[in-house]
């Protein structure tokens, strides 16, 4: 087990986005986390990443408890993530965005960087090489020096994955990477996810809305609804579970009624 979550409960002023959620992710697995809008999927990632402090529950990563640690400390332990709304460094190039993923592997401080001679210069070229490998891996060569703000949304999503991969994480958290992508981009994404799993052997916890992708790629699926886990297991079983269908359809039905 790379990650084990036990009884995770989150509260915001009376609201309970998560209630007693337990789940675990196997070493090397591509684990999907699904559920209707507002189910609490992003909240789970935010708790793991240290952006939210859970009211109760435990998060164990690589043999240590990480709940309550600051986000940058959790990142330092080897958890990388992408965000639902991309959250790139908009004023910088693709190259600089991905180089920022190398931050935790680099050492130069302000003085060394300001002088930029010897060690800090060597460090910069060394990590630049790693970044180029990632750019090649995600087929982003033609965007290398462009400002990320000027790129299509689908490409921005890949840059965000590239930035996370540059951290060489043990666990990669992905928040709806396929949202906003067209068919072709989704097919590329599927290819990249499989390559991350097989070539880089990175464990992934993957929040996703596209059930077709989940069914094709995920090793396990966990389903959340109203902040509670309602099902988990292999995708073939879980996606056929009537309870899961009801959670999705029921919500859609309510939404239709609400709109009408």
């Amino acid at each position, binding site marked *: 087990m790379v990650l084990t979550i036990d009884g995770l409960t989150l509260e915001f002023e009376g609201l309970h986005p998560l209630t007693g959620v337990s789940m675990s992710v196997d070493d090397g697995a591509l684990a999907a986390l699904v559920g209707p809008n507002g189910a609490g999927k992003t909240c789970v990632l935010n708790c793991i*990443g*240290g*952006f939210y402090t859970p009211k109760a529950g435990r998060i164990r990563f690589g043999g240590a408890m990480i709940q309550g640690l*600051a*986000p*940058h400390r959790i*990142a*330092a332990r080897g958890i*990388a*993530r992408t*965000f639902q709304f991309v*959250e*790139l*460094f*908009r*004023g*910088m*190039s693709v190259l*600089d965005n991905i*180089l*920022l*993923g190398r*931050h*935790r592997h*680099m*050492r*130069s*401080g*302000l003085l*060394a*960087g*300001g*002088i*930029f001679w010897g060690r*800090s*210069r060597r*460090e*910069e*070229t060394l990590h*630049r*090489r790693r970044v*180029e490998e990632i750019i090649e891996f995600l087929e982003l060569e033609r965007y290398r*020096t462009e400002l990320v703000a000027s790129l299509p949304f689908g490409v921005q999503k890949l840059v965000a994955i590239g*930035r*996370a991969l540059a*951290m060489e994480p043990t666990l990669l958290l992905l928040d709806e990477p396929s949202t906003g992508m067209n068919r072709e981009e989704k097919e590329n994404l599927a290819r990249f996810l499989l390559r991350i799993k097989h070539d880089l052997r990175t464990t992934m916890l993957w929040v996703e809305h596209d059930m077709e992708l989940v069914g094709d790629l995920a090793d396990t699926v966990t389903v959340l609804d109203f902040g509670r886990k309602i099902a988990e297991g292999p995708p073939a079983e879980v996606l056929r579970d009537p309870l899961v269908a009801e959670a999705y359809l029921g919500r859609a039905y309510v939404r239709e009624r609400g709109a009408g």
Partner: protein
Amino acid sequence: MARGGGYFKTTYAADLALVDTRLRRRALAAFVVALLVLPRVASPFILDLVAQTALAAIGALALNLLTGLAGQVSLGHAGFIAAGAFTTGVLIENGVRSPLVALPAAAVVGAVLGIVVGIPALRLKGLYLALGTLALHHVVLYACAEFQNHWGANTGVSIPPPAIGPWVLKGAVAWYYTLTLAAALVLALSVNLRRSRAGRAWMAIRDREIAAESVGIDVARYKVLAFVWSSAITAVAGGLFAYHRAFVSVEAFGFFLAVEYIAMIIIGGLGSALGAVLGAAFVTLLPHGLDALVAGLRLSGGAAYYLFPLKFGAFGLLMAVFLLFEPQGLVGIWRRVRNWFALWPLRYRPLRSAS
């Protein structure tokens, strides 16, 4: 940008180079030679203007590190300059004349003040941060005024020229070389920070704080470091200012000075080191330009009287104009002109608009 293209980079080190084409290397060499020989051809007045620009550029570059790179707004910049100037003043009043003591001391005072503002600033953003730093400015000026009264010098204290052993820094030419060199060093530091780990971390915090945390940047630490470095460099500029003016007085460090520095980095182009230098030149030379204009128009005394407040309003107006119409400032204009010439007579957009 290579003229007509044809430059291929074969190593990552080459891609990191700041002056990467032969044309650029020649232009830079020509500029350095021009700066070196300027004292042979220019009048002391011109040399002094360049020296003043260089001094302003140091402060502007330091503010650009904090505001342009790390994204932390500060209205307290004049306070840090005052702190450096008064550190020098206090040391001289106590018999310490060597700049080798005074300038490092100014840096330490600036760094400590940077921590003092930087830590509470972690809880503030945007406008509130601006007001918080403004409060610091008032506190520092109050302390400086106390010192000034303590010396019994209501108008200010005169500062003897800096001396290291038998060597005394005096005269327009010596000051010109000293301040230009100092500005060049701070410029190099700024440019290097921009292409290395720490400067990138600052820009990441400026662009998106949560994303910065998610890649493992200790946001609080880097924000405080931005205040510390910026204010330390600024305080050294303040120390140099005191020596250069040969006089310190609280009057010189009012709110208007803080506005001037913000004007420099906005007009020059926020986040760009070259912009900070261009902005410093612009703001330093503008009053002289306006004076020349007024003199040239041969206005009667009354009209000149009304032009005086206009000179002060000009900064506000210019800042607004740049923010609205040219957010990339003077560097933005410079890049466009350069690209236009690089591609002349064709009219394609450049493939790469970076640097």
